Protein backbone atom coordinates (compact mmCIF):
# COMPACT_ATOMS: atom_id res chain seq x y z
CA UNK A 1 0.00 0.00 0.00
CA UNK A 2 2.68 2.46 1.13
CA UNK A 3 4.96 1.34 -1.68
CA UNK A 4 2.27 1.97 -4.24
CA UNK A 5 1.74 5.46 -2.88
CA UNK A 6 5.47 6.19 -3.09
CA UNK A 7 5.50 4.95 -6.67
CA UNK A 8 2.59 7.20 -7.62
CA UNK A 9 4.16 10.19 -5.89
CA UNK A 10 7.43 9.57 -7.68
CA UNK A 11 5.77 9.42 -11.10
CA UNK A 12 3.82 12.57 -10.30
CA UNK A 13 7.03 14.37 -9.36
CA UNK A 14 8.77 13.28 -12.53
CA UNK A 15 5.84 14.45 -14.65
CA UNK A 16 5.47 17.79 -12.92
CA UNK A 17 9.14 18.67 -13.10
CA UNK A 18 9.39 17.54 -16.71
CA UNK A 19 6.56 19.91 -17.54
CA UNK A 20 8.24 22.72 -15.60
CA UNK A 21 11.45 22.09 -17.51
CA UNK A 22 9.60 22.31 -20.83
CA UNK A 23 7.62 25.45 -19.95
CA UNK A 24 10.27 28.03 -20.91
CA UNK A 25 10.68 26.44 -24.34
CA UNK A 26 6.94 26.36 -24.96
CA UNK A 27 6.67 29.92 -23.70
CA UNK A 28 9.45 31.16 -25.99
CA UNK A 29 7.97 29.50 -29.06
CA UNK A 30 4.51 30.78 -28.19
CA UNK A 31 5.60 34.38 -27.49
CA UNK A 32 7.74 34.63 -30.60
CA UNK A 33 4.99 33.33 -32.86
CA UNK A 34 2.21 35.29 -31.12
CA UNK A 35 4.08 38.56 -31.60
CA UNK A 36 5.90 37.79 -34.82
CA UNK A 37 3.40 36.06 -37.08
CA UNK A 38 0.94 39.02 -37.19
CA UNK A 39 3.87 41.22 -38.25
CA UNK A 40 4.82 38.86 -41.05
CA UNK A 41 1.22 38.69 -42.27
CA UNK A 42 0.88 42.47 -42.27
CA UNK A 43 4.18 42.83 -44.08
CA UNK A 44 3.23 40.16 -46.66
CA UNK A 45 5.83 38.73 -49.02
CA UNK A 46 7.56 42.10 -49.01
CA UNK A 47 8.61 41.41 -45.46
CA UNK A 48 10.84 38.65 -46.83
CA UNK A 49 12.01 40.37 -50.01
CA UNK A 50 12.47 44.08 -49.23
CA UNK A 51 15.08 45.91 -47.18
CA UNK A 52 14.67 47.81 -43.93
CA UNK A 53 11.96 50.46 -43.62
CA UNK A 54 12.72 54.03 -42.48
CA UNK A 55 12.09 54.84 -38.81
CA UNK A 56 8.37 55.13 -38.17
CA UNK A 57 7.47 54.22 -41.76
CA UNK A 58 5.90 50.79 -41.98
CA UNK A 59 7.49 47.37 -41.91
CA UNK A 60 9.58 47.13 -45.07
CA UNK A 61 11.46 43.82 -45.21
CA UNK A 62 14.30 41.87 -43.75
CA UNK A 63 15.80 40.39 -46.91
CA UNK A 64 19.39 41.56 -46.21
CA UNK A 65 19.26 39.76 -42.88
CA UNK A 66 17.88 36.52 -44.31
CA UNK A 67 20.42 36.60 -47.12
CA UNK A 68 23.18 37.31 -44.62
CA UNK A 69 22.20 34.46 -42.33
CA UNK A 70 22.24 31.98 -45.22
CA UNK A 71 25.54 33.33 -46.53
CA UNK A 72 27.14 33.15 -43.08
CA UNK A 73 25.87 29.65 -42.36
CA UNK A 74 27.13 28.49 -45.76
CA UNK A 75 30.57 30.08 -45.49
CA UNK A 76 31.14 29.12 -41.87
CA UNK A 77 30.16 25.52 -42.65
CA UNK A 78 32.56 25.56 -45.57
CA UNK A 79 35.38 26.68 -43.29
CA UNK A 80 34.45 24.89 -40.09
CA UNK A 81 32.99 21.50 -40.99
CA UNK A 82 35.97 19.93 -42.80
CA UNK A 83 38.36 20.97 -40.03
CA UNK A 84 35.95 19.85 -37.33
CA UNK A 85 35.31 16.43 -38.86
CA UNK A 86 39.00 15.79 -39.36
CA UNK A 87 39.78 16.91 -35.81
CA UNK A 88 37.00 14.72 -34.41
CA UNK A 89 38.20 11.77 -36.47
CA UNK A 90 41.77 12.31 -35.30
CA UNK A 91 40.93 12.31 -31.60
CA UNK A 92 38.62 9.32 -32.01
CA UNK A 93 41.14 7.21 -33.94
CA UNK A 94 44.34 8.15 -32.08
CA UNK A 95 42.97 8.58 -28.56
CA UNK A 96 46.26 7.95 -26.77
CA UNK A 97 48.60 10.31 -28.62
CA UNK A 98 49.68 13.44 -26.77
CA UNK A 99 48.53 15.69 -29.60
CA UNK A 100 45.08 14.17 -29.61
CA UNK A 101 44.77 14.58 -25.85
CA UNK A 102 45.61 18.27 -26.10
CA UNK A 103 43.25 18.74 -29.04
CA UNK A 104 40.46 17.17 -27.01
CA UNK A 105 41.17 19.41 -24.02
CA UNK A 106 41.21 22.44 -26.31
CA UNK A 107 37.90 21.50 -27.89
CA UNK A 108 36.29 21.16 -24.47
CA UNK A 109 37.48 24.64 -23.57
CA UNK A 110 36.23 26.00 -26.90
CA UNK A 111 32.77 24.58 -26.18
CA UNK A 112 32.51 26.81 -23.12
CA UNK A 113 34.43 29.76 -24.53
CA UNK A 114 32.64 33.15 -24.48
CA UNK A 115 31.70 33.71 -28.09
CA UNK A 116 32.09 37.49 -27.86
CA UNK A 117 35.82 36.87 -27.38
CA UNK A 118 35.90 34.81 -30.55
CA UNK A 119 34.46 37.85 -32.32
CA UNK A 120 37.08 40.08 -30.74
CA UNK A 121 39.84 37.70 -31.81
CA UNK A 122 38.68 37.64 -35.41
CA UNK A 123 38.37 41.42 -35.35
CA UNK A 124 42.03 41.62 -34.37
CA UNK A 125 43.33 39.16 -36.95
CA UNK A 126 41.05 39.87 -39.90
CA UNK A 127 38.82 42.93 -39.59
CA UNK A 128 41.52 45.40 -38.60
CA UNK A 129 44.10 44.22 -41.20
CA UNK A 130 41.42 44.22 -43.92
CA UNK A 131 40.18 47.61 -42.79
CA UNK A 132 36.51 46.60 -42.99
CA UNK A 133 33.87 44.35 -41.49
CA UNK A 134 33.06 41.48 -43.81
CA UNK A 135 31.07 38.31 -44.31
CA UNK A 136 34.28 36.32 -44.41
CA UNK A 137 35.41 37.63 -41.01
CA UNK A 138 32.00 36.87 -39.51
CA UNK A 139 32.06 33.40 -41.05
CA UNK A 140 35.47 32.69 -39.60
CA UNK A 141 34.20 33.66 -36.14
CA UNK A 142 31.15 31.43 -36.59
CA UNK A 143 33.31 28.58 -37.86
CA UNK A 144 35.35 28.77 -34.67
CA UNK A 145 32.15 28.68 -32.61
CA UNK A 146 30.85 25.71 -34.61
CA UNK A 147 34.06 23.69 -34.61
CA UNK A 148 34.01 22.13 -31.12
CA UNK A 149 30.38 21.01 -31.45
CA UNK A 150 30.90 19.23 -34.75
CA UNK A 151 34.24 17.79 -33.67
CA UNK A 152 33.03 16.36 -30.36
CA UNK A 153 29.92 14.88 -31.94
CA UNK A 154 32.02 13.32 -34.68
CA UNK A 155 34.38 11.88 -32.09
CA UNK A 156 31.55 10.44 -30.00
CA UNK A 157 29.81 8.98 -33.03
CA UNK A 158 33.00 7.29 -34.23
CA UNK A 159 33.77 5.92 -30.80
CA UNK A 160 30.29 4.44 -30.61
CA UNK A 161 30.82 2.35 -33.75
CA UNK A 162 31.06 -1.21 -32.40
CA UNK A 163 34.62 -2.54 -32.50
CA UNK A 164 33.62 -5.68 -34.41
CA UNK A 165 32.73 -3.68 -37.53
CA UNK A 166 36.13 -2.02 -37.54
CA UNK A 167 37.84 -5.37 -36.98
CA UNK A 168 35.81 -6.85 -39.82
CA UNK A 169 36.99 -4.08 -42.11
CA UNK A 170 40.64 -4.35 -41.09
CA UNK A 171 40.49 -8.14 -41.49
CA UNK A 172 39.67 -7.58 -45.19
CA UNK A 173 43.02 -5.87 -45.66
CA UNK A 174 41.49 -2.40 -45.88
CA UNK A 175 43.65 0.58 -45.08
CA UNK A 176 42.95 2.79 -42.11
CA UNK A 177 41.64 5.70 -44.16
CA UNK A 178 39.10 3.40 -45.84
CA UNK A 179 38.04 1.82 -42.59
CA UNK A 180 37.53 5.23 -41.01
CA UNK A 181 35.85 7.06 -43.87
CA UNK A 182 33.98 4.32 -45.71
CA UNK A 183 32.98 2.08 -42.84
CA UNK A 184 33.10 3.78 -39.42
CA UNK A 185 32.02 7.18 -40.67
CA UNK A 186 29.11 5.68 -42.60
CA UNK A 187 27.93 3.63 -39.66
CA UNK A 188 28.32 6.69 -37.44
CA UNK A 189 26.64 9.05 -39.87
CA UNK A 190 23.61 9.74 -37.73
CA UNK A 191 25.81 10.99 -34.92
CA UNK A 192 28.00 12.99 -37.28
CA UNK A 193 25.02 14.60 -39.03
CA UNK A 194 23.48 15.39 -35.64
CA UNK A 195 26.71 17.17 -34.76
CA UNK A 196 26.65 19.11 -38.04
CA UNK A 197 23.06 20.18 -37.45
CA UNK A 198 23.75 21.25 -33.91
CA UNK A 199 26.77 23.23 -35.12
CA UNK A 200 24.76 24.87 -37.90
CA UNK A 201 21.82 25.54 -35.57
CA UNK A 202 24.19 27.07 -33.06
CA UNK A 203 25.80 29.49 -35.49
CA UNK A 204 22.61 30.42 -37.32
CA UNK A 205 21.34 31.94 -34.08
CA UNK A 206 24.61 33.40 -32.80
CA UNK A 207 24.84 37.16 -32.29
CA UNK A 208 27.88 37.87 -30.15
CA UNK A 209 30.59 36.72 -32.59
CA UNK A 210 29.02 38.93 -35.28
CA UNK A 211 29.07 42.20 -33.35
CA UNK A 212 32.76 42.90 -34.01
CA UNK A 213 33.01 41.14 -37.34
CA UNK A 214 29.92 41.31 -39.57
CA UNK A 215 29.42 45.05 -39.54
CA UNK A 216 25.77 44.60 -40.56
CA UNK A 217 23.99 45.70 -43.71
CA UNK A 218 20.48 47.18 -43.56
CA UNK A 219 19.65 47.96 -47.13
CA UNK A 220 21.94 46.03 -49.42
CA UNK A 221 23.39 42.61 -49.95
CA UNK A 222 27.03 42.34 -50.82
CA UNK A 223 29.81 39.88 -51.44
CA UNK A 224 32.04 37.86 -49.24
CA UNK A 225 34.38 40.74 -48.46
CA UNK A 226 31.67 43.26 -47.63
CA UNK A 227 29.74 43.87 -44.43
CA UNK A 228 26.78 41.58 -43.99
CA UNK A 229 23.58 41.47 -41.95
CA UNK A 230 22.12 38.50 -40.12
CA UNK A 231 18.73 37.89 -38.55
CA UNK A 232 19.93 37.63 -34.93
CA UNK A 233 22.14 40.67 -35.40
CA UNK A 234 19.19 42.64 -36.74
CA UNK A 235 17.04 41.65 -33.80
CA UNK A 236 19.80 42.76 -31.46
CA UNK A 237 20.12 46.19 -33.08
CA UNK A 238 16.42 46.77 -33.86
CA UNK A 239 15.16 46.36 -30.30
CA UNK A 240 17.64 49.04 -29.20
CA UNK A 241 16.07 51.63 -31.51
CA UNK A 242 13.42 54.00 -30.16
CA UNK A 243 10.95 53.30 -33.00
CA UNK A 244 7.82 51.18 -32.55
CA UNK A 245 7.94 49.82 -36.13
CA UNK A 246 11.52 48.59 -35.57
CA UNK A 247 10.37 46.64 -32.54
CA UNK A 248 7.66 45.06 -34.66
CA UNK A 249 10.22 44.18 -37.32
CA UNK A 250 12.34 42.58 -34.61
CA UNK A 251 9.41 40.34 -33.58
CA UNK A 252 8.79 39.44 -37.20
CA UNK A 253 12.48 38.62 -37.64
CA UNK A 254 12.39 36.45 -34.54
CA UNK A 255 9.46 34.49 -35.97
CA UNK A 256 11.31 34.07 -39.27
CA UNK A 257 14.43 32.85 -37.46
CA UNK A 258 12.47 30.36 -35.41
CA UNK A 259 10.55 29.14 -38.47
CA UNK A 260 13.76 28.67 -40.45
CA UNK A 261 15.15 26.72 -37.56
CA UNK A 262 12.12 24.45 -37.28
CA UNK A 263 11.56 24.00 -41.02
CA UNK A 264 15.16 23.09 -41.75
CA UNK A 265 16.16 21.06 -38.75
CA UNK A 266 13.16 18.96 -37.80
CA UNK A 267 12.84 17.21 -41.20
CA UNK A 268 16.61 16.75 -41.39
CA UNK A 269 16.61 15.03 -38.04
CA UNK A 270 13.87 12.71 -39.24
CA UNK A 271 15.54 12.06 -42.59
CA UNK A 272 18.91 11.04 -41.15
CA UNK A 273 17.78 7.53 -40.50
CA UNK A 274 19.64 5.50 -38.02
CA UNK A 275 21.78 2.66 -39.32
CA UNK A 276 20.80 -0.44 -37.45
CA UNK A 277 23.79 -1.95 -35.66
Amino acid at each position, binding site marked *: MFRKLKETLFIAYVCIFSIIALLPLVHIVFTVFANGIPVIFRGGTEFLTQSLASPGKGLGGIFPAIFGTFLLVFLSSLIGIPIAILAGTFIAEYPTSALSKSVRALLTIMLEFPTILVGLFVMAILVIPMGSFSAIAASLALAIVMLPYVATYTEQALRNVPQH*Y*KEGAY*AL*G*LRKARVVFSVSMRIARKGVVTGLLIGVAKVSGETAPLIFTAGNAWRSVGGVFEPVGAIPLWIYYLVQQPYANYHEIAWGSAAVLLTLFLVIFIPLRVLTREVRV
Partner: protein
Amino acid sequence: MNAIETRNLRISYGENEVIRGIDLDIPEKICFAIMGPSGCGKSTLLRAFNRLLELNPTAKVSGEIRFFEKNIYEMSEHELRRQIGMVFQMPNPFPHMSVFENVAYAVKCNRMAKSKKDLSEIVEWALKKSALWDEVKDKLKEKASNLSGGQMQRLCIARALALKPKVLLMDEPTANLDPISAGKIEELIHELKKEYTVVIVTHSPSQASRVADYIAFLYLGNLIEVGKLEEVFENPKNELTEKFLTGRMG
Protein backbone atom coordinates in the same frame (compact mmCIF):
# COMPACT_ATOMS: atom_id res chain seq x y z
CA MET B 1 53.67 -27.37 -47.03
CA ASN B 2 52.31 -25.84 -43.86
CA ALA B 3 49.90 -22.94 -44.19
CA ILE B 4 50.83 -21.46 -40.85
CA GLU B 5 53.69 -22.20 -38.52
CA THR B 6 54.57 -20.60 -35.22
CA ARG B 7 57.83 -20.90 -33.32
CA ASN B 8 58.14 -19.94 -29.67
CA LEU B 9 55.22 -17.56 -30.07
CA ARG B 10 54.60 -15.37 -27.05
CA ILE B 11 51.88 -12.76 -26.79
CA SER B 12 51.22 -10.42 -23.91
CA TYR B 13 48.84 -7.59 -23.15
CA GLY B 14 50.92 -5.22 -21.08
CA GLU B 15 52.39 -7.31 -18.28
CA ASN B 16 49.94 -10.15 -18.75
CA GLU B 17 51.30 -12.98 -20.89
CA VAL B 18 48.43 -14.81 -22.56
CA ILE B 19 50.31 -17.03 -25.05
CA ARG B 20 53.37 -18.63 -23.53
CA GLY B 21 55.71 -19.99 -26.16
CA ILE B 22 53.73 -21.99 -28.70
CA ASP B 23 55.07 -24.06 -31.59
CA LEU B 24 52.32 -24.98 -33.99
CA ASP B 25 52.22 -26.39 -37.52
CA ILE B 26 48.97 -25.98 -39.39
CA PRO B 27 48.96 -28.05 -42.61
CA GLU B 28 47.37 -26.87 -45.82
CA LYS B 29 43.74 -27.58 -46.85
CA ILE B 30 42.46 -29.07 -43.65
CA CYS B 31 40.31 -27.82 -40.82
CA PHE B 32 42.39 -27.07 -37.76
CA ALA B 33 40.51 -26.51 -34.51
CA ILE B 34 41.98 -24.53 -31.64
CA MET B 35 40.14 -25.60 -28.56
CA GLY B 36 40.20 -24.68 -24.92
CA PRO B 37 38.26 -23.12 -22.07
CA SER B 38 37.37 -19.42 -22.03
CA GLY B 39 40.33 -17.13 -21.49
CA CYS B 40 42.96 -19.64 -22.61
CA GLY B 41 44.19 -17.35 -25.37
CA LYS B 42 42.60 -19.01 -28.40
CA SER B 43 41.17 -15.83 -29.94
CA THR B 44 44.41 -13.98 -29.24
CA LEU B 45 46.35 -16.68 -31.03
CA LEU B 46 44.01 -16.49 -34.03
CA ARG B 47 44.35 -12.70 -34.22
CA ALA B 48 48.12 -13.00 -34.25
CA PHE B 49 47.95 -14.96 -37.51
CA ASN B 50 46.48 -12.06 -39.52
CA ARG B 51 48.15 -9.37 -37.39
CA LEU B 52 44.77 -8.08 -36.25
CA LEU B 53 46.27 -7.91 -32.78
CA GLU B 54 48.04 -4.78 -33.92
CA LEU B 55 44.77 -2.90 -33.51
CA ASN B 56 45.31 -3.30 -29.78
CA PRO B 57 48.23 -1.06 -28.85
CA THR B 58 48.98 -2.99 -25.64
CA ALA B 59 49.46 -6.33 -27.40
CA LYS B 60 53.08 -7.46 -27.82
CA VAL B 61 54.09 -10.41 -29.98
CA SER B 62 57.45 -12.17 -29.95
CA GLY B 63 58.64 -15.33 -31.64
CA GLU B 64 57.94 -16.27 -35.20
CA ILE B 65 54.82 -16.73 -37.31
CA ARG B 66 55.20 -18.01 -40.87
CA PHE B 67 52.56 -17.98 -43.57
CA PHE B 68 53.49 -20.47 -46.29
CA GLU B 69 57.07 -20.30 -45.06
CA LYS B 70 57.18 -16.52 -45.17
CA ASN B 71 57.59 -14.47 -42.02
CA ILE B 72 54.34 -12.52 -41.68
CA TYR B 73 56.19 -9.46 -40.46
CA GLU B 74 58.01 -9.29 -43.78
CA MET B 75 54.76 -8.73 -45.68
CA SER B 76 52.47 -5.72 -45.39
CA GLU B 77 49.63 -6.35 -42.96
CA HIS B 78 47.12 -5.43 -45.69
CA GLU B 79 48.49 -8.04 -48.08
CA LEU B 80 48.58 -10.63 -45.30
CA ARG B 81 44.97 -9.96 -44.30
CA ARG B 82 43.82 -10.28 -47.91
CA GLN B 83 45.30 -13.75 -48.00
CA ILE B 84 44.04 -14.75 -44.56
CA GLY B 85 40.29 -14.17 -44.33
CA MET B 86 38.59 -13.91 -40.97
CA VAL B 87 35.09 -14.61 -39.66
CA PHE B 88 34.15 -13.34 -36.23
CA GLN B 89 32.07 -14.51 -33.32
CA MET B 90 29.56 -11.71 -33.90
CA PRO B 91 28.25 -11.67 -37.49
CA ASN B 92 29.51 -8.27 -38.65
CA PRO B 93 28.49 -7.48 -42.22
CA PHE B 94 28.65 -3.71 -42.77
CA PRO B 95 25.16 -2.56 -41.80
CA HIS B 96 25.14 0.44 -44.14
CA MET B 97 25.92 -1.61 -47.24
CA SER B 98 23.76 -3.90 -49.33
CA VAL B 99 24.36 -7.63 -49.56
CA PHE B 100 26.16 -7.11 -52.87
CA GLU B 101 28.30 -4.23 -51.64
CA ASN B 102 29.34 -6.17 -48.56
CA VAL B 103 30.99 -8.77 -50.74
CA ALA B 104 32.11 -6.38 -53.46
CA TYR B 105 33.56 -3.61 -51.31
CA ALA B 106 36.93 -5.08 -50.38
CA VAL B 107 37.30 -6.55 -53.89
CA LYS B 108 36.89 -3.06 -55.32
CA CYS B 109 39.21 -1.45 -52.76
CA ASN B 110 41.91 -3.96 -53.52
CA ARG B 111 41.41 -3.52 -57.28
CA MET B 112 40.81 -7.20 -57.83
CA ALA B 113 38.01 -6.85 -60.38
CA LYS B 114 38.76 -5.83 -63.94
CA SER B 115 35.26 -4.63 -64.78
CA LYS B 116 31.77 -4.31 -63.40
CA LYS B 117 30.84 -7.62 -64.92
CA ASP B 118 33.92 -9.22 -63.44
CA LEU B 119 32.95 -7.80 -60.05
CA SER B 120 29.44 -9.23 -60.14
CA GLU B 121 30.87 -12.58 -61.19
CA ILE B 122 33.21 -12.57 -58.21
CA VAL B 123 30.33 -11.66 -55.89
CA GLU B 124 28.12 -14.40 -57.30
CA TRP B 125 30.95 -16.93 -57.06
CA ALA B 126 31.65 -15.99 -53.42
CA LEU B 127 27.99 -16.13 -52.46
CA LYS B 128 27.66 -19.55 -54.09
CA LYS B 129 30.80 -20.76 -52.35
CA SER B 130 29.33 -19.72 -49.01
CA ALA B 131 26.01 -21.45 -49.78
CA LEU B 132 24.11 -18.18 -49.60
CA TRP B 133 23.40 -17.40 -53.25
CA ASP B 134 20.03 -19.14 -53.49
CA GLU B 135 18.75 -17.31 -50.43
CA VAL B 136 19.90 -13.81 -51.40
CA LYS B 137 20.06 -13.72 -55.20
CA ASP B 138 16.80 -11.72 -55.31
CA LYS B 139 17.76 -9.32 -52.58
CA LEU B 140 21.32 -8.36 -53.44
CA LYS B 141 20.37 -4.71 -53.15
CA GLU B 142 18.79 -5.01 -49.73
CA LYS B 143 20.64 -3.93 -46.63
CA ALA B 144 22.74 -6.70 -45.12
CA SER B 145 21.22 -5.94 -41.73
CA ASN B 146 17.91 -7.39 -42.97
CA LEU B 147 19.37 -10.89 -43.18
CA SER B 148 19.07 -13.47 -40.42
CA GLY B 149 22.01 -14.15 -38.10
CA GLY B 150 23.05 -17.29 -39.93
CA GLN B 151 22.79 -15.59 -43.32
CA MET B 152 24.84 -12.67 -42.04
CA GLN B 153 27.54 -15.05 -40.90
CA ARG B 154 27.61 -16.75 -44.31
CA LEU B 155 27.73 -13.30 -45.90
CA CYS B 156 30.84 -12.63 -43.83
CA ILE B 157 32.33 -15.86 -45.11
CA ALA B 158 31.48 -14.79 -48.68
CA ARG B 159 33.05 -11.40 -48.04
CA ALA B 160 36.28 -13.08 -46.96
CA LEU B 161 36.24 -15.65 -49.80
CA ALA B 162 35.78 -12.97 -52.45
CA LEU B 163 39.38 -11.90 -51.84
CA LYS B 164 40.53 -15.44 -52.75
CA PRO B 165 42.37 -16.08 -49.50
CA LYS B 166 44.40 -19.19 -48.78
CA VAL B 167 43.47 -19.42 -45.14
CA LEU B 168 40.19 -18.72 -43.39
CA LEU B 169 40.25 -17.94 -39.68
CA MET B 170 37.02 -18.47 -37.76
CA ASP B 171 36.64 -17.19 -34.23
CA GLU B 172 33.76 -19.17 -32.69
CA PRO B 173 31.66 -18.55 -35.82
CA THR B 174 28.57 -20.29 -34.47
CA ALA B 175 28.58 -18.93 -30.91
CA ASN B 176 25.80 -16.45 -31.65
CA LEU B 177 23.71 -18.66 -33.94
CA ASP B 178 20.80 -21.01 -33.45
CA PRO B 179 21.53 -24.74 -33.88
CA ILE B 180 20.17 -24.93 -37.43
CA SER B 181 22.20 -21.97 -38.67
CA ALA B 182 25.22 -23.33 -36.80
CA GLY B 183 24.73 -26.65 -38.56
CA LYS B 184 24.78 -24.93 -41.95
CA ILE B 185 28.04 -23.19 -41.09
CA GLU B 186 29.57 -26.51 -40.04
CA GLU B 187 28.46 -28.14 -43.32
CA LEU B 188 30.01 -25.23 -45.13
CA ILE B 189 33.31 -25.73 -43.31
CA HIS B 190 33.41 -29.29 -44.67
CA GLU B 191 33.14 -27.89 -48.20
CA LEU B 192 35.61 -25.08 -47.63
CA LYS B 193 38.40 -27.18 -46.22
CA LYS B 194 38.75 -28.97 -49.54
CA GLU B 195 40.19 -25.80 -51.03
CA TYR B 196 41.18 -23.63 -48.11
CA THR B 197 42.90 -24.04 -44.81
CA VAL B 198 40.28 -23.39 -42.15
CA VAL B 199 41.45 -22.52 -38.65
CA ILE B 200 38.55 -22.50 -36.26
CA VAL B 201 38.49 -21.46 -32.62
CA THR B 202 35.89 -23.22 -30.54
CA HIS B 203 35.25 -23.99 -26.91
CA SER B 204 33.03 -26.91 -27.81
CA PRO B 205 34.72 -30.32 -28.16
CA SER B 206 31.67 -31.66 -29.98
CA GLN B 207 31.93 -28.95 -32.64
CA ALA B 208 35.64 -29.63 -32.99
CA SER B 209 34.92 -33.33 -33.45
CA ARG B 210 32.37 -32.56 -36.16
CA VAL B 211 34.45 -30.24 -38.30
CA ALA B 212 38.14 -30.63 -37.57
CA ASP B 213 40.92 -32.83 -38.93
CA TYR B 214 43.48 -31.55 -36.45
CA ILE B 215 43.03 -30.34 -32.92
CA ALA B 216 45.16 -28.15 -30.70
CA PHE B 217 44.23 -27.91 -27.04
CA LEU B 218 45.20 -24.70 -25.29
CA TYR B 219 45.12 -24.12 -21.57
CA LEU B 220 46.17 -20.88 -19.84
CA GLY B 221 48.29 -19.85 -22.79
CA ASN B 222 50.13 -23.13 -23.11
CA LEU B 223 49.75 -25.65 -25.90
CA ILE B 224 48.82 -28.80 -24.02
CA GLU B 225 48.27 -31.16 -26.89
CA VAL B 226 48.07 -31.13 -30.67
CA GLY B 227 47.45 -33.84 -33.22
CA LYS B 228 45.01 -35.51 -35.57
CA LEU B 229 41.41 -35.46 -34.40
CA GLU B 230 41.16 -39.21 -33.75
CA GLU B 231 44.44 -39.36 -31.86
CA VAL B 232 43.54 -36.52 -29.53
CA PHE B 233 39.97 -37.60 -28.97
CA GLU B 234 40.54 -41.33 -28.56
CA ASN B 235 43.91 -41.24 -26.92
CA PRO B 236 44.58 -37.95 -25.16
CA LYS B 237 48.13 -37.96 -23.84
CA ASN B 238 47.53 -35.27 -21.30
CA GLU B 239 45.19 -35.48 -18.34
CA LEU B 240 44.00 -31.88 -18.87
CA THR B 241 42.93 -32.69 -22.42
CA GLU B 242 40.97 -35.66 -21.25
CA LYS B 243 39.27 -33.61 -18.54
CA PHE B 244 38.28 -30.98 -21.06
CA LEU B 245 37.02 -33.46 -23.64
CA THR B 246 34.93 -35.30 -21.12
CA GLY B 247 33.38 -32.11 -19.84
CA ARG B 248 34.98 -32.09 -16.43
CA MET B 249 36.52 -28.70 -17.16
CA GLY B 250 35.44 -25.88 -19.35
